[in-house]
């Protein structure tokens, strides 16, 4: 038990250790010339912060009226809207970018509309584009969390509010705001972190040099200039900023999960006022269009039949092979690691500082720039990139999906605690214990974790941008390339294929692993 628990901990620790030692070995041989890029450095840090703060303010600020409207209005399309909301959360970033370009791009739907009134729309590239994409992802996220919070306000409070004749403003002030305020730091911190470390969105919409974040600058330093010292410097700045936000977050930790969106049982009287109705309807229509248009644009890509010829191209074959290789092996490796980690967690469960360390180790990847990690690994592993490249992509991918898989699997594994004494007393131990008891209990969560891990890997667009070549690529990289070459119709088909593949990975894993045995 102990050994199998220490093994993955050792593996993860050594991955970071190897990467760091690789990076440090490069720094010794090169002098770090800070003076030269001092100016540029400050500019990048400033822009990273500004765009993240603006994205956070917009997402959170808009999410409050959206969540209120969703909470106090009942309408037929509500479950559908919530579903679309959830869909936007799991959409691969690069796929969503394509959808946003199709809607907001210079030749997109909105600019076509505006052209009717003779306005030339040209706003997508630069800060605006980055904000649009960040809000696309994070507004639904924040809205859902806030809605969950609002759902926890007890029915008695609403009755009381009705009894006292509170108006919408007063309800917000006395009922909703006190609750939202407790969620606010967490939600804002989470969104800030996501936007601060955002890569693909800034890469595509940042216009190359004009708007660059630390994450993109790290990527460019490595890929374009092979300037490891600068990449490491940038990485440490990013880690430092993220870590301080992260620590602030965990200090005032109150766990909220994104599941169990319970239906409102009380009808709020303030939603019935005509003014609120008009306002909420307006808000919800904008919100719905905001999310649904890019998704429709993506789905629409499937109906461009001639563009399906792209599946015959050499590039596509290589990309889908690459994607299958990466996602299957990442999910396979990660599921082994995550299972033993969860059992290790259960094993040391009494010791809260040990479990805290374990959490930290697993979540480190969320603030550790993947490019720096991958480069450090490569410096040590060396060799032909067409072989070590995929291996490193898989390693980094495994680390990246671990936190998500662990969050799904851990509760199930901890649930098996309740059978510990009974099993031991009945002599159900070792393999019998696992196959008769634990496996039956965790298999659904395990299947879900594997599905999520696979789906995330299929949509991943990070380290592959560093190691990809014409011969080793994945579907997201191929999509990025097609977009780069402005072959939007074919890109649309690839986007649909990525989504279908993610979905089927999800469902197939549930079918094969998660199905109840007869």
């Amino acid at each position, binding site marked *: 038990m102990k050994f199998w628990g220490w093994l993955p901990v050792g593996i993860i620790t050594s991955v970071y250790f190897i990467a760091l030692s690789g990076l440090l070995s490069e720094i010794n041989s090169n002098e770090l010339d800070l003076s030269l890029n001092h100016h540029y450095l400050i500019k990048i840090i400033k822009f990273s912060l500004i765009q993240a703060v603006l994205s956070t303010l917009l997402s959170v600020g808009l999410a409050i009226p959206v969540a209120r409207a969703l909470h106090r209005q009942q309408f037929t399309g509500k479950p559908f809207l919530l579903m679309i909301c959830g869909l936007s959360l799991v959409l691969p970033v690069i796929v969503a970018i394509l959808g946003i370009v199709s809607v907001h791009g210079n030749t997109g739907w909105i600019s076509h509309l505006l052209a009717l009134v003779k306005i030339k729309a040209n706003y997508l590239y630069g800060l605006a584009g980055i904000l649009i994409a960040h809000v696309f992802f994070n507004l639904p996220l924040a809205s859902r969390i806030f809605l969950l919070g609002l759902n926890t306000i007890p029915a008695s409070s609403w009755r009381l509010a009705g009894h006292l004749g509170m108006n919408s403003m007063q309800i917000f002030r006395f009922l909703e705001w006190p609750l939202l305020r407790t969620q606010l730091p967490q939600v804002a911190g989470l969104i800030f972190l996501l936007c601060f470390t955002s890569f693909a969105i800034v890469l595509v919409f940042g216009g190359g040099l004009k708007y660059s974040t630390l994450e993109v600058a790290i990527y460019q330093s490595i890929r374009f200039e092979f300037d490891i010292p600068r990449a490491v410097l940038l990485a440490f700045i990013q880690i430092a900023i993220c870590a301080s936000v992260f620590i602030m977050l965990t200090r005032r930790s109150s766990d909220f999960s994104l599941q169990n969106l319970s239906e409102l049982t009380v009808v709020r009287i303030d939603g019935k006022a005509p003014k609120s109705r008009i306002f909420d309807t307006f808000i919800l229509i904008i919100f719905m269009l905001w999310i649904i248009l890019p998704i429709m644009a993506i789905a629409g890509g499937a109906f461009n039949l001639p563009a399906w010829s792209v599946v015959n191209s050499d590039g596509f074959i290589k990309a889908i092979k690459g994607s299958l290789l990466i996602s299957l092996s990442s999910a396979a490796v990660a599921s082994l690691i995550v299972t033993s980690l969860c059992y290790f967690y259960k094993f040391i469960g009494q010791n809260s500082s040990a479990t805290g360390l374990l959490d930290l180790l697993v979540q480190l990847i969320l603030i550790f720039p993947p490019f720096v990690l991958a480069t450090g690994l490569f410096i040590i592993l060396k060799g032909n990139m067409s072989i070590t490249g995929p291996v490193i992509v898989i390693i980094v991918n495994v680390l990246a999906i671990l936190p998500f898989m662990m969050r799904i699997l851990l509760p199930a594994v901890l649930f098996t605690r*309740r*059978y510990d*004494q*009974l099993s*031991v*007393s*009945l*002599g*159900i*131990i070792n393999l*019998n*214990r696992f196959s*008769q*008891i634990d496996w*039956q*209990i965790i298999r659904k969560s395990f299947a879900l974790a594997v599905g999520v891990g696979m789906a995330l890997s299929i949509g991943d667009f990070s380290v592959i941008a560093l190691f990809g070549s014409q011969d080793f690529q994945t579907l997201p990289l191929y999509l990025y390339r097609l977009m780069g070459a402005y072959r939007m119709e074919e890109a649309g088909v690839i986007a649909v294929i990525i989504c279908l593949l993610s979905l089927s990975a999800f469902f197939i894993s549930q079918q094969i692993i998660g199905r109840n045995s007869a």
Partner: protein
Amino acid sequence: MLKLDSVKFNYETQDFEFDFDLAGGRCMAVMGESGSGKSTLLNLIAGFLTPRSGAIYYGNQRIDQLAPHQRPLTILFQEHNLFNHLNVYQNIGLGIRPSLKLNESEKQSIHDALNKVNLAGTENRLPESLSGGQRQRVAIARCLVRSRPILLLDEPFGGLNEELKSDIKVLLNQLKKELNLAMLWVTHDPDDVEGIVDEAMRLEHGKIITLINKCVGETLTAPATNLKDNPRNQPK
């Protein structure tokens, strides 16, 4: 006969010491405040905890070095006696063989046990479709098929109403006599064990402070009440 020979154990600053014996066909009630050592006692006998010194015997066999499932005992917990994802048949079968590979006579014994607890025909049902009392009776059926001479009960009536309690008590009493079981019953409520208990002990700060050996008779009402009212009774 179950025998604890100056079994000592310590956890944090608390010292525990147990020394008593219990014959087959008899039921011993274990009472005391929470934290007094009731669960520790049960866990020591069951093998979830290891004594610092002393020994536990069943007859002449020393059992405190055996793995929990190798000890000649079976346990009825307060809750989580059944695996929710397994049906009644499997839950009982696991008590015979953890691999669930059963031969014909073993399969038959499961049906017999279910008959005995008046749950014939529920083989394929899942625990969640049973009532709380039925679930405990399934657990008792498993105790039956395990046919171990010692039965440990840890607040087995948690969450059951009076009627169900007396049903199960009748069943346990019957088994005690038929199978000559040595029963050690942890409870906070003397009423729970009324009519079945033969002996009783009261624990305080990890020590036995009252031990009542009632050699004959069917009830122990008076001493049990006594135990409840006068916690400062001296050891025998």
